[in-house]
């Protein structure tokens, strides 16, 4: 019973806000009567989504897969790189500023390079998703590991733990709350990265991911379809974020129980 109440407490406010925003949107349409090319009505968007449901579903699947693979690569690489930097202070002092600087470079600026390196197709979207989401994971891993309780590090010293044992049994679990936060940020970014990759690395085959669908709809002046595709992209991001949050919750259950 308390689980249902807790779910309602979490789900009702955002649902109410979405309903209010859609109502406000429709209200603006009635009040200002903009051209459907500029701002379509919510019902037009819904109609376009229903009409194009199969291409939209396929697009969501393709973009979601690119984002998920890119995210998985970023998660692995970020945790590994963060662990190495945390373990080797010289590398951290040398590489972390460079990584920070590279993170500032806009993704759209390097996306054409990805096309050169990865070719046209999903690989560019995957690479783009991985690149944009690796830094939050790396930074979160580094922060989490560097914050390992000094007393516990000393305890592992008295127990004569090896370096790998200390990493696996202490530093990595200690950093998990921080890593999960980084992963949640990365999950959202990976969808953005995948769509940017799709924009520049237009797919050669029959399959159209969300990025291509948006570009095609824009060229055909189908703003209602652009809105529908953007909504699909948001849903893909939301699902990925939700899955990562669920995984994080499962990983952190023991932390929360211990802190209770």
């Amino acid at each position, binding site marked *: 019973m308390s689980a249902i109440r807790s779910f309602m407490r979490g789900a009702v406010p955002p649902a109410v806000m979405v309903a209010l925003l859609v109502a406000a949107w429709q209200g603006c349409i009635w009040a200002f009567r903009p051209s459907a090319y500029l701002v379509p009505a919510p019902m037009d968007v819904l109609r376009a989504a229903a009409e194009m449901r199969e291409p939209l579903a396929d697009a969501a699947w393709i973009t979601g897969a690119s984002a998920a693979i890119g995210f998985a690569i970023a998660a692995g690489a970020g945790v590994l790189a963060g662990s190495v930097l945390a373990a080797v202070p010289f590398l951290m002092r040398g590489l972390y500023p460079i990584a920070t600087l590279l993170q500032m470079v806009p993704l759209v600026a390097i996306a054409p390079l990805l096309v050169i390196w990865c070719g046209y197709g999903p690989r560019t979207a995957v690479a783009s998703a991985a690149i944009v989401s690796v830094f939050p994971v790396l930074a979160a891993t580094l922060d989490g590991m560097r914050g390992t*309780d000094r*007393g*516990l590090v*000393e*305890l*592992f*010293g*008295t*127990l*004569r*733990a*090896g370096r790998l*044992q200390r990493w696996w*049994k*202490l530093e990595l*679990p200690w950093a*998990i709350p921080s890593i999960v936060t980084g992963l949640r940020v990365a999950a959202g970014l990976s969808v953005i990265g995948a769509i940017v990759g799709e924009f520049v690395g237009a797919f050669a085959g029959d399959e159209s991911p969300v990025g291509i669908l948006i570009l095609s709809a824009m060229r055909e002046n189908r703003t209602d379809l652009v809105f529908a595709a953007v909504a699909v992209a948001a849903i893909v991001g939301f699902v990925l974020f939700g899955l990562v949050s669920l995984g994080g919750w499962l990983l952190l259950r*023991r*932390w929360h*129980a*211990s*802190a*209770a």
Partner: protein
Amino acid sequence: MGAAIRAFGVSRAFEDGSVALDGVSLEVAPGSVAVLVGPSGCGKTTLLRMVAGLDRPTRGTVTVEGVGPEGAAAAVAIAFQEPRLLPWRSTVRNVALPLELRGVRRRERLARAREMLGLVGLGDAHRKLPGQLSGGMRMRAAIARALVTRPQVLLLDEPFGALDEITRHVLDDLVLAIRAELGMTVVLVTHSIAEAAYLGDRIFVMAPAPGRIVRTVEPGFAARGPALRASVPYATLMADLLHSLGTAMAASAGGRAA
């Protein structure tokens, strides 16, 4: 019989010129409870850390069971001021950690951890997470973890300092019961004169600036328990230790002023 722990002319100076210990010598008999008592800054924890191999003297030697602390690492276990339990691990898995790091098989290490939890009175709490235990229970778990490798020397660094008086008394008796059961040498660091007087077979009174032993006392109590805490010899010993500490502190303050 040789000493379980021997320190000879041990000094520890830091780079900033401060001296934590100056020419400390002591011997601890096997199977006894030795207590280092003194105010903050008298170097008692530094000395304990040297016995644990966590720090090295700048002068002098420390031996445990006849060898240097590094060589005796497997024979020594330490419980710190804080329990230092891994919050994501159940109590039994925390206790089993030292065995896990030594590569002991899962079934065996969990069995031994449960045995130690039973010894410290936490037999029913093995599945609980550290956050679900009280402060006293966490400290018991930390002691069980220190005991799980069956060390010959157990080092206790003010482990009960943050606990209430009643819990401290219970855990003091637990230390004595464990020593009787497992027969190891115990070295306890404390700033509590009452705890030192109650537990110590040999009490080293330490004073600061620089850290040194100003007096060694062997109370020789035949038995411990509530009767001892209420006895005149115990109260006299506490007053005696307090006087020794006061005199040493005054001498240290006079030395600094001069």
